[in-house]
């Protein structure tokens, strides 16, 4: 009894501090592989991927944005036309969570309240985790959806993208 509805095309972005694992998460999600080497992204890398959410096809256009660092802030203009974004922080570098918070503020300032999901990435490196339970509690209380991910092991990766996709419907 499923009615056929036309596929939705949605632009999503990956944003966060440099080296947090944005490109690795996309690679894991699309190709199921992981690479230890760090190849930083310049500008944007764009991929397309279709997935079914609640029997509805969504054609994602995934914009993997260059990470933010002290030299180059995130270019908010890339987010124009985006329906939502996956915010990525590195669990082994506390300051990447601060970067993430600041990005959310800046995006809200120009693009309005876009749906987003925070991927707290690299959770496979449990012994090196620098992000505290209290930090996460505080953000969750503020309404953030937080998923623990590892591009290396695959943990939480599909869930993070699907969770975001569901928010776009």
């Amino acid at each position: 009894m499923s009615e056929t509805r036309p596929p939705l095309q949605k632009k999503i972005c990956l944003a966060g501090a440099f080296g947090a694992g944005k490109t690795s998460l996309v690679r894991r999600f699309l190709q199921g592989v992981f690479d230890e080497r760090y190849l930083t992204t310049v500008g944007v890398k764009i991929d397309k991927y279709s997935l079914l959410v609640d029997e509805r096809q969504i054609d994602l256009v995934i914009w993997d944005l260059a990470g933010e660092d002290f030299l180059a802030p995130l270019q908010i203009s890339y987010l124009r036309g985006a329906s939502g974004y996956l915010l990525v922080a590195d669990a082994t570098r506390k300051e990447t969570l601060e970067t993430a918070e600041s990005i959310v503020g800046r995006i809200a300032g120009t693009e309005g309240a876009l749906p987003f999901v925070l991927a707290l990435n690299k959770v496979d490196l449990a012994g090196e985790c620098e992000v505290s339970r209290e930090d996460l509690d505080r953000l969750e209380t503020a309404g953030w959806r937080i998923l623990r991910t590892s591009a290396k092991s695959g943990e939480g990766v599909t869930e993070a993208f699907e969770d975001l996709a569901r928010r776009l419907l």
Partner: protein
Amino acid sequence: MDWILPILDLAVIEPVTPGLWKPSPPVPDWLGWAGGDLQSLGNEFPMLETFLLDAMPFWDRGQRGRLRSAIWKQKVGPAEAAFRADAIFGDGKRALLLQRIDEEAEEMRRAYQGARDLALTTRKFDKQRAQAELIGRRKDDFLASMSHELRTPLNSVVGFATLLEQQRGGELTGKQQSFVSNILTASRHLLALINEVLDLARIDAGRLDLCFETFKFGDCVAEVLAILGPQAAGRHVAIDAAGVDIEIFADRLRWKQILLNLVGNAVKFAPEQGSVLVEASSGDAVYEVAVSDDGPGIPPQKREAIFDRFSIASVHGAPQESHGLGLAITKRLVEAHGGLIRIETASMGGARFVVTVPCADRKSP
């Protein structure tokens, strides 16, 4: 506008009639677009959709110039390629330049990579160092509190044994007296060792504050010789001093501790009837103190390890005698003064400990 076309090795799409754009020949394979409205090109190149939001008003202004997009990467066919777009206006015409810039993008990427790798490596290094420091500090705190805990009961062992020795609790038989004396010797030794551990832990925990003053080094030597005199006399060891009447600017109490340790060791390791020599000299930049004995000496391969706080083992022949932690402490005290300590072979055959310290600036030590 026509002048620019021949020097472009890439696709230029120019409007034929308003709203109908066409690739300018030759069309590269990767373009895969024969013309149409710009939105249809946006389906192939999602970045253009966003870029056109800026390009349209730029063209509409009708001013000669160029607007450049960011670099992006995407798949064209099976392979990934890097692109950049330029919106151009000139001679009343609009053009959109779509450029493949694989090499330029890779060069730029490498430049960023260098900076980011460096930032990550530096961070990792700082973190490891901070962790090592934290572990070290915890260990030192533990040692300090542990030694303190041990010292309290031991003080009462020494105290009560002393009362027994003084026969305050009644008369002792000869045998009992010798037992008590053994208890006292062993517990005093233990107490001294614990005090050393405590001292070392304090120094390593960074709680060593030097108190600088100008004093006559000779006075300090005299005090130390007075303390060690009985011990030396017991073994008929002669202690001589040469050139010690210099003035230095340093922590007097800590220097006394350094001397007590070095001269104490020398007396301990000198043979019966042996001799110990304390020398000092002072120059413009440094002053030097040396303590020599005519004991068995320290072989070169053991000279480094002897200052290690974990090397309590005897390096000399006498098994029951060791340097204890004293040398580890001495080394740290010397270093706290900005100086160095080294071991040589004395001209009289034994060990010679040489301490070299820069003359401290009296205003800001």
